[in-house]
């Protein structure tokens, strides 16, 4: 079944019991409750109107009336109770709730706990399968940083950050109008309008050394648009630097860790990888760190940079012997 028809049938089977309990409810309220437009709600009611028990004589059909703007429903006894959850539905929602429960300092803790209890009861046998999925959101950020960031978002206050940029090995000071706090399955980010960059930026919370909620309005400019939640967080752009590197078997993980464009097996477990990035600042650092397991092929300036820095560092070691 297509996702759209599954969603619609599911909604109809949920909507009928709800409407039966609330005769005369407004079209607007019902549409809002189920998160659809009024036009879609009317289409749903029109569909219900032509369905019914076998025979399909007028007396067998569901009665639906919404002309006054209020919804009245009748003759739908067979589907008067809401359909239970399927196994996948129970797993997806229970595992989602358990993931949410890891958010530190969540204000809605009590509601979450009671929802979890009720949902487990509602899921019945299907709840057993929910142990098939488990997500660890990671603890890579301090709770005070996370809660200050959330506070800024909630109250629309400007935030001041002391933020580390390891790729350039520097600490920066920034004012940010916060838009949202999100987690992508491993670490927390703050998305907001950065006054220094004059653009929407994503900040890793584990790299925030200091955070202060300022007593200033932090509403982002109207043209500040957050990234679509379904989009990858790191999107390619035409100004990206293109880098080709060779990876020894022990450094293959690099190909799955960074957004790579092209991967070629070189044999014996070695890889040649092409990647694009907004900046290549981090490549020499990674090459130095991996001690020859990562070799920069192009651009040659980057390879030269690795050699120069390694050379310079080794010279410093030769000069400053520990006992000298």
């Amino acid at each position, binding site marked *: *079944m297509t*996702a759209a028809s*599954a*969603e619609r*049938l599911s*909604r109809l*089977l*949920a909507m009928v019991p709800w409407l039966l309990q609330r005769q005369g409810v407004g079209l607007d309220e019902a549409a809002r409750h*189920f998160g659809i437009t009024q036009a879609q709600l009317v*289409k749903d009611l029109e*569909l219900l109107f032509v369905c019914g028990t*076998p025979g399909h004589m007028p007396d067998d059909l569901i009665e639906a009336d919404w002309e006054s703007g209020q919804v009245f429903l009748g003759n739908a006894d*067979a*589907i008067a109770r*809401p*359909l239970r*959850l*399927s196994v*996948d539905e129970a797993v997806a*929602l229970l595992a*989602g*709730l358990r*993931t*949410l429960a*890891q*958010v530190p300092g969540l204000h*809605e803790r009590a509601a979450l706990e009671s*929802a979890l209890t*009720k*949902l487990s009861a509602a899921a019945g046998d299907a709840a057993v399968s929910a142990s098939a999925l*488990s*997500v*660890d*959101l990671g603890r890579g950020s301090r709770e005070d940083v996370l809660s200050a960031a959330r506070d800024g*978002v909630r109250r629309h206050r400007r935030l001041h950050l002391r933020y580390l*940029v390891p790729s350039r*090995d520097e600490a920066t000071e920034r004012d940010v109008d916060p838009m*949202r*706090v999100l987690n*992508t*399955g491993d670490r927390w980010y703050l998305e907001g309008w950065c006054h220094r960059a004059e653009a929407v930026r994503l900040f890793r919370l584990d790299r925030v*050394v200091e955070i202060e909620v300022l007593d200033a309005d932090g509403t982002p400019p109207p043209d500040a648009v957050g990234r679509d939640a379904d989009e990858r967080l790191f999107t390619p752009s035409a100004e990206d630097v293109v880098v080709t590197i*060779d990876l020894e*078997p022990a450094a*293959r993980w690099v190909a799955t860790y960074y957004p790579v464009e092209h991967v070629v097996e070189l044999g014996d*477990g070695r890889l040649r990888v092409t990647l694009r990035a907004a900046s290549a600042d981090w490549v020499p650092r*990674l*090459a*130095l760190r*991996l*001690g*020859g397991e990562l*070799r920069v092929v192009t651009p040659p300036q980057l390879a030269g940079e690795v050699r120069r820095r*390694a*050379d310079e560092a*080794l010279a*410093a*070691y030769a000069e*400053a012997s*520990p006992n000298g």
Partner: protein
Amino acid sequence: MAPPAHRTERLLNLVICLLSTRSWLTKEQIRAAVPQYAECATTEAFDRMFERDKEDLRELGVPLVTGSHSSWFEDEQGYRIDRGAYALPDLEFSAEELAVLGLASRVWQQASLAGPAARALVKLKALGVETDDESLVGVEPRVRAAEPAFEPLYAATRDRAAVTFTYRTRDGEASRRRIEPWVLTSRAGHWYVVGHDRDRDARRSFRLSRIEGPVQRVGPAGGYEVPPDLEPGELVLPTAEPADERMALVLVRPDRGVLLRQRAVMVEPAGPAGPAGAAQEDGPGWDAVHVVVRDVRELAQELAGYGPDVIAVEPPDLRERVIGVLGGALQGSTAAEVAAGSAV
């Protein structure tokens, strides 16, 4: 193909029909009772459509059961919906609970879980009061599973069905594995499947991004039991070696080594004389930074990454390792430059 609305109408009529009946209905009775089946010109076409409809209803959680009044229908099975099992239990969710559930339903990024999560939320809304989605703004956990192996492994884990796949280890070696999956778990942004490795007869975990090619089932659903009280986190992490508690002394150029400073136990700013052992002639001088070693191999790599901005002083084995890593990087970059040069 019938238009989607037509399909929804047919399925809704089918649900109502199978819920209203007290006796088992044969396929022929169902065909006559649901008007939309009239469009099937042949019995074969109806059979195909009915098979698919049954699957669709089961996928949505409809408890479709088969049986027969044995004395009446010796050959033919009848169908109905188990009314006792059909409905959600009598619960009510508060507005706050529904808001939390709404957030939970948006955790998943991939359609295979996002769709079911959204449907589950709508079903629960049938029990609930007016919702207020605005009460929870500004915090959004988003979990993505882009690995192609995720979908088949999730289904196999849910169904408890053994699978086989090709796996490449961290060292780059590929081999065929047969496992009974117990749990799919996401740690530090990576998905792992944990289960019983049939060939090694032991518990193993596999990173999904290192699985190559298709995942195939090699056993029936419900083919094994999952051990109770699994702690997925402990299963994935390699047995933690005790942390190296020694203190390391490293010299860091002012304003450099920002991540290192962040976890330093102590930072001594560069004095007029400078810390012992440092070359002090010109230049900006050095701060003495003290950090816990934890893992000498990892720390050596991290320090090497800073190049000439950071110099390890002690312990001596750390210093030796950093020099070794830098030597490797120097050799690697020289080789790459030579190769690039010869290609021209």
